[in-house]
């Protein structure tokens, strides 16, 4: 679902079609942005003036809406979204160590995306599987009872080093 950095012409055409559907409906900004993100994985900043024009809004306003919401992204994200839980239970059961190990393996900081656009690393407040703490979620899969060996198994094969 998440794409790599370059947008193809076909994607651009599709995106323009999506945006056009919203016509001059100012209320449609957020659904429109969500649709664009669904297709491209993020909202390219270069598209902002176009979206603004079609919807009848000012570009700075569209930018304001996008930057307000954490889940609307203006940079391309990795193919795999790795979420390390930092909730209470996970913390108590060594979540911080797990996070550091993941960081080492992927060689990126929290909030960053690896240069090959394979991984994006995030921390989240609580996944709700505290019985399996410490936890990691990769895309839609939850991995519980994490330990250094398991971390190495998950990411070792994709190791950049």
């Amino acid at each position, binding site marked *: 679902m998440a794409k790599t950095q370059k947008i193809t012409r076909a994607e651009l055409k599709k995106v323009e079609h999506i945006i056009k559907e919203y016509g001059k409906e100012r209320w449609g900004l957020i659904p429109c942005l969500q649709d664009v993100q669904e297709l491209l994985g993020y909202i390219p900043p270069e598209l902002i003036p176009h979206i603004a024009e079609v919807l009848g809004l000012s570009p*700075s306003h569209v930018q*304001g809406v996008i930057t307000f919401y954490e889940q609307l992204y203006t940079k391309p994200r990795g193919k795999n979204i790795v979420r390390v839980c930092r909730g209470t239970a996970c913390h108590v059961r060594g979540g911080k160590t797990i996070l550091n190990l993941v960081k080492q393996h992927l060689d990126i900081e929290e909030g960053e995306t690896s240069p090959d656009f394979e991984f994006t690393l995030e921390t989240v407040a609580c996944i709700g599987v505290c019985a399996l703490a410490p936890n990691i979620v990769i895309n839609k899969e939850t991995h519980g009872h994490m330990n250094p060996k398991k971390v190495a198994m998950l990411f070792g094969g994709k190791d950049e080093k």
Partner: protein
Amino acid sequence: MEAITITLDKVEVSGYPGMTILELAQESGVTIPTLCNDPHLAPSGACRICLVEEENSGALLASCVTPIRPGMVINTRSPRVIERRKVILQFMLASHPDSCLVCDKGNRCELRKLASEMGIGLLEFHRIPQHHVIQEVNPFIERDLSKCILCAKCIRADQELVVEGAIDYIERGFISKPATLNNMPLENSECTFCGTCIALCPTGALTEKEKTYHGTTTATVDTICPFCGCGCSISLEVKDNRLVRSKPAKESPVNYGTLCARGSYGYDFVHSPERLTSPMVREEGELREASWEEALTRAASEIKRIKEEYGPDSLAVLGSSKCTNEENYLLQRFARSVLGTNNIDNGSRLYNAASRVGLGSSVGFPCSTNSLKELEQSDMIMVIGANPTASAPAVGYAIKRAVRNKGTKLLLVDPRKTRLASSAYLWMKPRIGTDVALINGLAKVIIDEKSYDEEFVARKTDNFEEYAIDLRAYTAEYVEKMTGVPQEEIYLAARILAGNGHMSIVYGNGITQNSTGTNNVIALANLAMLTGNIGFSGGGIYALQRENNAQGACDMGSLPDFLPGYQSLDDSQARKSYGDRWGSEIPENAGLTALEMIEKAEAGTLKGLYIMGENPVLSFPNSSRVRNALSSLEFIAVADLFPTETAKLATVVLPAASFAEKDGTFTNFEGRAQQVRKAIEPPGESLPDWQIILRLAESLERPMPYSSTQGVRDEIEEMIPLYHHLDEFDRDDSDLDDLRGERLGARRFYKGLFPSGFGRFSPVEYIPPESTGGKQYPLTLLTGSVIHHFGSGTRSSRASRLKKFSPQAWVEINNKDAGKLGFSNGENARVVSPAGEVNAVIRTSEELPPGMLFMPISFPESPVNELFGVTTEGQTRTPSLKTCAVRLERTDSNGQDPENHQS
């Protein structure tokens, strides 16, 4: 509507439903402090300083957004309120730098004021690290967002008042701040530097750059902006006899708290070192300084001599559409009664005569029919031949607000893309010079589809049948062929114009400065009458005036063929009444218009000229011809602020005072006369023009009996029916509806409708424009205003910040044309027409259609009017200064031909 009663600080007060607690408190004289509130902006409840306690429920309510409810018991100063307010302020101060001692906002800072009132000294809260100052090169706005308290007044002003959309909040939480798209410097955004945000910012976050004075000033004077025809109310701040700041005035019936770059930053020309401070006389070919007595004696003796030798009609007077009404009135009295000639005209001849004649003959009155406030209430607006966002910004804002808030349908008619295009419902791009065909075509569709206002036409107008018959030739097919506008657009436009609701037509110099100017205006007036849009709120005709007092100068009779108040010279009764008042006979024959003065000077029949506040060498077409003509006169006196190109040719130069240095009135394009107040003393020996005229009359032994502007104003009020209510300035517009015809401060004549009772349809024929320049001159040049300069640039080029931002003239050319002709952005070029040539820098643009060039009019070093010949339009003897045929040549940086020959 039932009144709602609440208890406010133990007193019972009543208000109407929908009123907020804050509004009721303000009306009742109770002060509730605010930071994010402003009368011109919709309340937002951002700062929470205005919290009040509702004692029944114990709730703390934000009074600026909470509507009153019956039975509320409000305490605006309860201990909880005070405590809460203190905490909020402390939070704000915790993220505010400790630089009060060095901050320019000083005593004007509302945060500081509130904090000190609340007794907040040292802060106990943890400090939050802040944003840096943003580096920008524009000379207008300085942003130090570490001082921003997130009240959003700047954003709301940008989006609600001037509707530019340059800034909005970015991010959220502690890092939230107002920013442009991609957080670029303002000069890389849509910002027009109107200065409204600076006027509203309560802290030092937004301030003017290059301030001449830091801190709080001693005096403010409310007056009227001296630039365009909007007549915005400005508040000038004065310190040590210098103007240091210009802000929108609190009471601003035209501009509602906004201004434009000219109003906000253009005032520095008043302090330009080039100001004339002493009279000068020409001796042995050179101008030298002299005393007032010497200069006036010299002028008087020359005038007397010429009058005796050649007769009074060998003298002429050129009045100023920039000087006050009182001065223009005095000047025309001077011409008629002291000199004995009707040879008087004013600078607005260059663009406004078509309006006067056209509207005068159709609706009976030579002015806009409604106020700007009513434009915002229109359901449909047609803007044709005008670029209000550059030439009359307050009108531009009103139009954009109407589109944004009311869903008004904007019909834009302009071959060039202007800033209004993005707000337009329909944008038609007719070929240049084809306006009459287009307008007639629209009218025909409306008549054919029977969507015109039959009742209005039948009861209130004359001559409809002849008009309708004449329109038969203007079929949509024919119009498409002539104008290039597709038929579907013509039908769509006509349906919009005749649709339900009120329609306003806004037009400007694109309509009037043509060889068919008067016909263009009449065609528009016909259209307005056809759709029944004259004579009530929300519909009407708006004739934009380029200059601040173009309307006033003409109203005052600075015209060769009319006495004050547009009383015709043919009217012997009028001549007698003025003759009696002034103690002399008024000559009967109409005098020379401005351009005829040049022609007669050339021919040798005009010998002497008195010029007040005009610069014909720069503003008239073909300046070399004007220069020669003026040089051949035996006597010229010029009263002006600067040693202009025209002043340099004068026999006697008289230093005049600027708008900030005298009292008087200006009449804006709405017809509203507004008070101009003196803020500082004129520099050196310069004097206000009215005093100069009086002194000159005295030197000619024909003194005029006035000792102050009040005396002149009293006579204006007495003699000119239109200005009967000149003294009632302080009444506000809400009394307007009662008086319908008699507007205060402005003269409105529509007691319901037309002064004569009927509007008149005059059929006008479309005359195709003369064939363009052929192979020699393959491109069409369009001239126009730009927002960061004004008029011919005499004053705005001496305003330091405006000059810095926009230092030199340019010629815009369509991208593709540039490619084809081999020009690139930034190259030097020369624009050549059959009449002359001008140098400019190339700017490629996507906003022009192919084959068209655009040049701004306001750069004295590149006077566009050089390119125009002096052909005048039939009915008004106005030159057509809008378009001409040209070619483009390449030059090197010195404006010379490069070694490889032209393209």
